């Protein structure tokens, strides 16, 4: 067994009567950038919390290198889950200062890179003496990113790191992520709703829907299976036989079907009198998780 594999097996989690994760299996291989995408309430943060022992599970197991993660300092030392910061904290505003977060992170993360943290702090123009509640949403995301990158943890997890960042800062974040990845080859798991922008960064994509993992595949491989087929209704229907039709849009006699399939069936479609166009990751996500809401 690879010592650096993070694995979840048969994980179930409920909040009261609401089951959030259902018998979930997941393997995180080392040295990859994973994108975790899912709709609001799909269970992304709960899953990440359970993978990092920040949340409890009802049944199942989470292991790192074959050893349980729960209360295992050796495993926890290899994992950083940099969560979204909250402007309020339990009883009132989050009055903790940026420097308090950074100093605390430096205590707990054994590979903490102070020099890198200082560089990022200056690069992001963050004031260490500012309170978290005084920061903008984007600045809070910067603190999250800073902690994640400077932790130098072999498995680094970011929850919604791009939330609130402007487009320039988002580009900067993807650039930093790729630079760090090229340098350290550590594993990143990035949960995001800004799918298309981040798609090119993800080597592997995990799609979570209603507490179940729908996909955990290399991004290119996944996208290549999905196409739009559009044309005259009868021809589209004929071509789509044998393919998995995920959604359909119709305007008069013109029909567009989002399909999943490859090989001979798709070859047949390509030679028919219809338009076949590829999907991007966002379209794939909508086709798989839209449940008709997008139409």
């Amino acid at each position, binding site marked *: 067994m690879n010592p650096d594999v993070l694995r979840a097996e048969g994980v179930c989690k409920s909040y009261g009567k609401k089951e959030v994760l259902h018998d979930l299996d997941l393997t995180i291989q080392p040295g990859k950038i994973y994108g975790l995408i899912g709709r609001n309430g799909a269970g992304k943060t709960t899953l990440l*919390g359970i993978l*990092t022992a920040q949340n409890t599970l009802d049944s199942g197991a989470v292991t790192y290198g074959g050893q349980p993660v729960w209360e295992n300092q050796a495993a926890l030392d290899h994992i950083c889950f940099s969560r979204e910061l909250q402007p309020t*904290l339990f009883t009132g505003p989050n009055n903790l200062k940026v420097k308090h977060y950074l100093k605390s992170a430096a205590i707990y993360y054994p590979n903490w890179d102070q020099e890198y943290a200082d560089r990022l702090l200056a690069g992001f123009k963050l004031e260490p003496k500012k309170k978290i509640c005084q920061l903008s949403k984007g600045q809070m995301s910067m603190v999250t990113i800073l902690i994640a990158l400077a932790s130098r943890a072999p498995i680094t997890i970011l929850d919604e790191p791009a939330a609130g960042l402007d487009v320039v800062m988002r580009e900067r974040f993807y650039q930093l992520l790729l630079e760090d990845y090229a340098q350290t080859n550590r594993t990143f798991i990035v949960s995001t709703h800004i799918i298309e922008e981040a798609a090119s960064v993800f080597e592997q994509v995990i799609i979570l829907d209603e507490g179940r993992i729908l996909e955990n595949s290399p991004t290119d491989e996944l996208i290549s299976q999905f196409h739009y087929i559009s044309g005259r209704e009868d021809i589209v229907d004929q071509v789509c036989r044998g393919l998995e039709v995920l959604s359909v849009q119709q305007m008069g006699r013109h029909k567009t079907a989002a399909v999943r399939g490859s090989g001979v069936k798709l070859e047949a479609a390509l030679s028919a009198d219809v338009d076949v166009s590829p999907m991007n990751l966002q379209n794939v996500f909508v086709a798989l998780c839209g449940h008709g809401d997008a139409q």
Partner: protein
Amino acid sequence: MVRSLKYLLRSAWVSLGAMLAFAAIVTAGACLTGVPQGANNIFRTYFGCFPLLTLLMLFLYTYGLCTSDLNLALSFGARRRDYFLALQLILLLYAGVSWALQTVMSAIPDLFGWTSVDRWSFLMSLGGLTNWRYPLACLTIMALGCLCGLLYTRSRAWGIVVMVLAILGGIAATTVLLLFADARPGSPGSLVAAALTCGAVAVTAVCELLIWRTVNRYIVR
């Protein structure tokens, strides 16, 4: 556990520093406003009530230890067991410093020949290195503070209930210490004091058990 202790000590020094600074300000204020000569003013009240104020400060400090501090430590990968053990050492540190501070504060009027007033006897009854009931009261109120913080993160109503009970308990504990500090062995007063001391020990033990159970299942937010 060392990391959790380092983490908690960072804010503990600040909290203890604030407590010592407050004691210094109250004492200096009392001296400058003629309290040693019998003046009756706000500094005299603060000086006389210092044991209660210390308990209140301890409650607030420990409340934070089991809300934002706990959440942040676990989000950075602290083990729950380590945090709990480090928390116990911090509680002992707080209790020890509060005890020492109370000893010094209660000795000041005698050492410097302040005019004796009733309040000093109240203060004296709580101070002194031989009065181990004061650190016990500190530990009880801190355990309640921790539990209150933990409950508040789960249910605001329960948190408020425990907070009110803790404040009332703190006042009651101090009053009991005041009433029975000079009780002779075998007298009814000493029996009541002994029963209440046992009660404080029991409350502390139950709180610690509940704190451990809650920390062990704590979900980072």
